[in-house]
């Protein structure tokens, strides 16, 4: 798929073989059509047996410390995992459960919660955007969220909330909540969650909670960017295959210079996206927040462009639901629009850079 690897990352040999198994799981479970099947047949919009295989391989434990039963892998392992799953448009709660929750539990050094998390039979849901609407005390938390990721079917929910007037991250037993599926165009697991005076565990509050929310936003942006990159790479490879086989006017359409040049330009953009992903992981430790904004804004732009070009190359067939490109398009657009849009992130970057 990508001709050149991402060199010089601290990813170990274990990490590399880890990734290989993930790719095998992805391909063995029927990517990309799995997304269509899950959309039509699964109540929670999650490919549960694929998710089980991923969990069994240890991905939820990947970035947790060894002391908490984790594998102590560097962050880039799970970020590149998100890219590998993006290639197959696999509907599993990966970013929430292999990136965000373990990142939080590791930062909190919360052994007990880590143990409960690793023993989870399904998954945990996460929402960082509801601090203004989920309000109360640890004994009585009330409010409604809008689009909580992977909440349907979850065992626990990790939510931003306002506790006694302070910003906090809390853990709520998902059975204590009322929820309703709220699908966006990508038809993944998002829900409106309603809490009515429920009990919660306050994981962290005050300034430290604010810092951790920012950190989780950053790592989830990296994961979103990686997933979009994987999808852009997949769509481009489908497009190139199509250009090499489709015939019109008595010729393979890939011989037409108008199409060759557009494909070459899309390729250049994709090279830049791979470069940004790679350097964001290299630079991640230095300024994670900025690297993640840059990564999501620019890879989002490029992924949308590459998807649009891949669509146009395919012509009418791309518009059909039975063809896979539409699934990639919808997922890329939704990821691009959530968790910081291109223009929002661009605006913040310009301010950060002094203009």
């Amino acid at each position: 798929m990508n001709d050149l690897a991402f060199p010089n990352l601290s990813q170990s040999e274990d990490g590399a073989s880890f990734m290989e198994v993930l790719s095998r799981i992805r391909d063995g479970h029927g990517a990309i059509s799995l997304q269509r099947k899950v959309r039509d047949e699964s109540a929670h919009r999650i490919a549960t047996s694929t998710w089980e295989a991923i969990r069994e391989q240890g991905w939820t434990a990947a970035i947790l410390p060894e002391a908490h039963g984790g594998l102590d892998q560097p962050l880039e392992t799970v970020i590149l995992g998100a890219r590998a799953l993006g290639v197959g448009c696999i509907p599993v709660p990966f970013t929430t459960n292999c990136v965000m929750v373990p990142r939080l539990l590791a930062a909190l050094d919360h052994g007990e919660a880590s143990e409960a998390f690793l023993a989870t039979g399904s998954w945990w849901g996460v929402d960082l955007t509801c601090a203004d609407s989920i309000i109360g005390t640890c004994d009585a938390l009330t409010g409604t969220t809008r689009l909580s990721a992977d909440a349907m079917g979850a065992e626990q929910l990790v939510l931003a909330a306002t506790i006694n007037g302070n910003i906090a991250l809390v853990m709520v037993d998902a059975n204590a909540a009322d929820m309703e599926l709220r699908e966006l165009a990508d038809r993944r697991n998002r829900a409106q969650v309603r809490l009515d005076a429920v009990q919660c565990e306050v994981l962290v509050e005050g300034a430290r909670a604010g810092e951790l929310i920012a950190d989780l936003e950053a790592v989830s942006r990296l994961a979103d960017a990686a997933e979009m990159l994987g999808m852009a790479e997949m769509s481009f490879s489908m497009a190139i295959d199509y250009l090499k086989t489709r015939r019109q006017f008595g010729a393979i359409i890939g011989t037409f210079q108008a199409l060759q040049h557009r494909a070459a330009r899309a390729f250049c953009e994709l090279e830049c996206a791979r470069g940004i992903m790679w350097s964001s992981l290299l630079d991640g430790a230095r300024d994670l927040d900025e690297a993640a904004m840059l990564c999501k804004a620019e890879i989002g732009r490029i992924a949308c462009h590459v998807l649009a070009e891949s669509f146009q190359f395919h012509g009418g067939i791309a518009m059909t639901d039975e063809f896979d490109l539409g699934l990639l398009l919808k997922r890329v657009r939704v990821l691009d629009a959530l968790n910081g849009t291109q223009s929002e992130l661009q605006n913040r970057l310009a301010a950060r850079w002094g203009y």
Partner: protein
Amino acid sequence: MTDETLRAEMRAYIEAHCPASLRTPMLTYEDRAYGGTKSTMNADQRAWLSAMADRGWTAPTWPKEYGGGGLSDRETGILREEMARIQARPPLEEYGLSMLGPALLKHGTEEQKREHLPKIVRGERRWCQGYSEPGAGSDLASLSTAARIDGEDFIVDGTKIWTSHAHRADWIFCLVRTDKDAPKHKGISVLLIDLTSPGVSVRPIQLISGHGHFCETRFEDVRVPKGNLLGPLNDGWEIAKFILVQERQMYGDHAKRGVEAKSLGQLAADTLPRDEHGRLKDPMLRADILRLELRTKGFEAARARLRAAGGAAGMAPFLKLYGTELNKERQDILMQIGGPASYGWDGPAFDDGQVVKNWLRSRGNSIEGGTSEIQLNLLAQRVLKLPKDKRE
């Protein structure tokens, strides 16, 4: 020697020898050090060139026996970092160094290497490139400058165009047709020609920017010793392409020049009105600047990844295409930041017209060294492996 010892040693040497006047961004062509017998270089430039050439660091990766630095790519990276640390200008920028040298190392005879490489390293002999002809632009292989054998010499007849800096160069590496009956990619050879040879004439061509370093170079019955043939007779096209790859990598640096100087955003912030939040007052220009900065960062990251992955020879068309187009866009934005004054043509009030002249000159970036369209063809056919159409 460990990397850290090497770094410390390089740092000390560069600190000791790089004159303060050469630790500033290069703004004009005159700021660059071209070497050769006809170029003008000031005393600081000469001293810096000489100090770096003493260590072979003008050509850090070339073998020591030919005057180079004998450094690995990693060690060269350390040298570049150390130079960048104090913003040291390159001690020498010249086509023998960037284009011909690598081809000589790969295809030259021992005698040719000993004759030419040390002089290139020391900046004693400046080279220019004889590729395009009035009738052979993008279709380079249709060139018709002819070289026929006569005893111990070739006799060369024809005209080369866009021979950059030929009027300041000492020698030219030249594509010539040595078999006019062969298919067009066959029958081409590479000749190394002394520009002082009888029958060579060079005429500078005035560009829209006022720059006059592009030339037309004519050959009328020019005698060139057979020993100046680089590589095999009639089989020079492969070498020609190899040199083009070097050239395209060099053009990819255009965008980098921009990064080394002040960022566009910083430049705009320093010169344009801002609102109470510190944002540029013109929101459209601010957005244009930010988007170009993001793309520039993306391109820089892509270059760095390709380098780290161990070379990017096949990706030269990407570097050339993207680097030059980014530079054109950067020049466009510089004109917007400068406003109407950036159109000033000359005189101290307009900084001698630098801004508009650089902008005008940059229009050629996506034409010279293979047009953007040629790079797109190469990417489509060589990298993406899309099928070629039937046209010759």
